[in-house]
């Protein structure tokens, strides 16, 4: 699994947290990633992410007063990449078992130390044939759902043969899900323009 980018460090049924192998190598907000818990492949959308110091009690301090650029700070302090870490949370939106794809929560959560990989274009296309996952995104509690949904759909649209038709179809599905909250719907739609 040469394209693994992170590793699960906390896992629940509806979300898991992964730590990046490389500082700042966080997949974009809304992108589709997966982790394997044999025989199931758990699929999720990248939500909240953050970078912080390793030791919980010690906060990083400012170091660049005499440096010319941010890059120079890291050059002068090569240990920094070891003292800092990037992690992100993933909102689980489905799973795959063999050839079957499900857009609802997997029976068991991810394993700690499970590898996290970005989904390929093919995988994204296959997954986004249905929009049932939108419901799970709407009920996440980490990030304002409008933001997360819009980000996920924008990400998915990139790999579609006809991105705008895809977004219209997704919008139609959302209209049903958000009926009764036209303002919120408009907020999402406003974030979907490419």
């Amino acid at each position, binding site marked *: 699994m040469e394209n693994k980018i992170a590793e699960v460090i906390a896992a629940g049924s509806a979300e898991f947290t992964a730590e990046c192998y490389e500082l700042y190598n966080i997949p974009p907000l809304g992108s589709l990633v997966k982790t394997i818990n044999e025989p199931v492949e758990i699929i999720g959308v990248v939500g909240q992410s953050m970078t912080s110091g390793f030791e919980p009690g010690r906060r990083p301090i400012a170091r660049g007063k005499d440096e010319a650029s941010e890059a120079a700070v890291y050059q002068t302090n090569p240990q920094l990449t070891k003292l800092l870490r990037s992690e992100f949370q993933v909102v689980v939106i489905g799973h795959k078992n063999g050839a079957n794809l499900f857009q609802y929560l997997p029976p068991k959560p991810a394993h700690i130390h499970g590898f996290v990989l970005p989904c390929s274009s093919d995988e994204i296309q296959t997954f986004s*044939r*249905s929009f049932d996952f939108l419901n799970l995104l709407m009920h996440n509690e980490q990030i304002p759902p409008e933001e997360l949904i819009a980000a996920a759909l924008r990400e998915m649209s990139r790999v579609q043969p*006809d991105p*705008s*038709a*895809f*977004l*219209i*179809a997704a*919008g*139609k599905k*959302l*209209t*049903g899900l958000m*009926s*009764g909250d*036209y*303002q919120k*719907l*408009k907020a999402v*739609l*406003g974030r*979907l*323009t490419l």
Partner: protein
Amino acid sequence: MTEGKKRDQTLGLVANNEKGLQVDQALGLVVSGSVEKGTEVRLDSQASVEDMVVGRYVTIAGKKRRFFGMITDISLGVTDPEIAVSPPDTADTFTAAVLEGTATYGALHVLPMLTLGGEATAITEGPQPVKTVPSHFSRVNLASESDMELVFGKEDESRFYIGNPLDMETHLCLDLETLVKRSNGIFGKSGTGKTFLTRILLIGMLQKSRAVNLIFDMHNEYGWMGTSEGGQRQVKALKQLFPESVAVFTLDEENSRRRGVSTDFVVKIGFEEIDPEDISLLRQTLNLTEAAVEAVYQLRRKLGRDWMQKAIDLNDSDETRALLAEMSIHESTFQNLKRGLATIRRLPFIVSRSPVDAVKQIMEYLDRGMNVVLEFGRFRDIAAYMLVANMLARRIYNRYQEKMEASMGGTVAPPTPLVITIEEAHKFLNTEIASQTIFGTIAREMRKYNVTLLVIDQRPSAIDEEIMSQMGTKITCLLDNERDIDAVLAGVSGKNELKTVLARLAPKQQALIFGHAVPMPVPFRPRDWGTAESYKEFTRGNNYAQKAEKDIKDLFD
């Protein structure tokens, strides 16, 4: 189904059809409804409201049976009133595209009218009237040609093609034998195509109804030549196309000759043929007082068959005064009557003694199966028309009555059914007069004596309500007076929906038919009349009938 296509459908990506709708395209789903009010159909997002037309036929695939109905209204809906309050920016085509068909949608109001298939009766007896509604989410499609044919029939020996349901290729066919079993009406305001439609219907009747026609042709349009486009173009009429089965009688020989009409008989009416009823019918037209009409009956009793001639001859003498006093007819009443009678006498076709009995002559033709058109020539005023039509019709009706009664004995055949066509029908059939005219009697009695009417009128609200309700089938072109619309549609189920349909008819050559002869109301476009092609089409039916007759003969010879 291929993977790609399936995906398109789930995502609703199928582009709106540029060419409009296909027949087998699903329009939407039934979401609510009642037998009385019809069903609400939510339009699929793929189907555009702009492709829908009021008056189009649809089928609804219920769980147990199929329904056949008509689109009677089309509307736009929103799921959330806020959308209407703050619609997306005009530039925001994306949001508009998303909302279309989801939060904003088209809706159809469909009136189910018949059920197709399902129960045994529907299979053996064809479409049945609806008694229920389709269940939730039944699919709605445009009616296919074969559904239409199932409902409107195919041309055959007794069915005649009168036109096409609006926007459809299907032939609307009427069973004319059924049609002429009752009196029927053709309505519409001036210039909407009543005359053209009547001509078409008459052509059909003379070929397929097994009835003969007598037409009181006020404007000389049915026998020989008619005009089109406000008189600018000439069109053919019945005798030109069917010389072997149509005879033209005229009241105005000179006029007919000038118009190059080949007439069969010149009608003259003798004084002695005019009865008091004929005068009483003309009370309003001739400006007679009630007393003057009373006087007519008295004069008839006193003076006998020749009463009219004698009354006109009465001069201002003591004898006259004595005679009037004897009958207690007031002098002014008599003067009023005399003025009226003078108006009648001035009509050139009224003679003191007619050489040939017109009624006898007409009966001879009718008995031979000939259709008779009586042209009025220049005598188009309503008094002449009412007098002649009522007088002749009454006598002919009496003959029919005698013949029918004789046939009940079983030795003679009943007379060929007769259809009498009259224009300006409200003049004969208004509430005040209907009880006095022969037409009122015929309209009410549903072919007791093998005579029915085809009435043509611009003002149906002026026709007696009971008579309107007795009419078997009504065909109405555009009407714009609310009272006329109400009068025509009185008692029809789905009246409000039909009102919408009626109000949307084109100002010419479109009509709505409903009643006995059709399984459900149908807005349609009458066949074209007036081109060489059209004449060929209309006479082809004739050959067909002749051929069928010949075939039958061959079979028995």
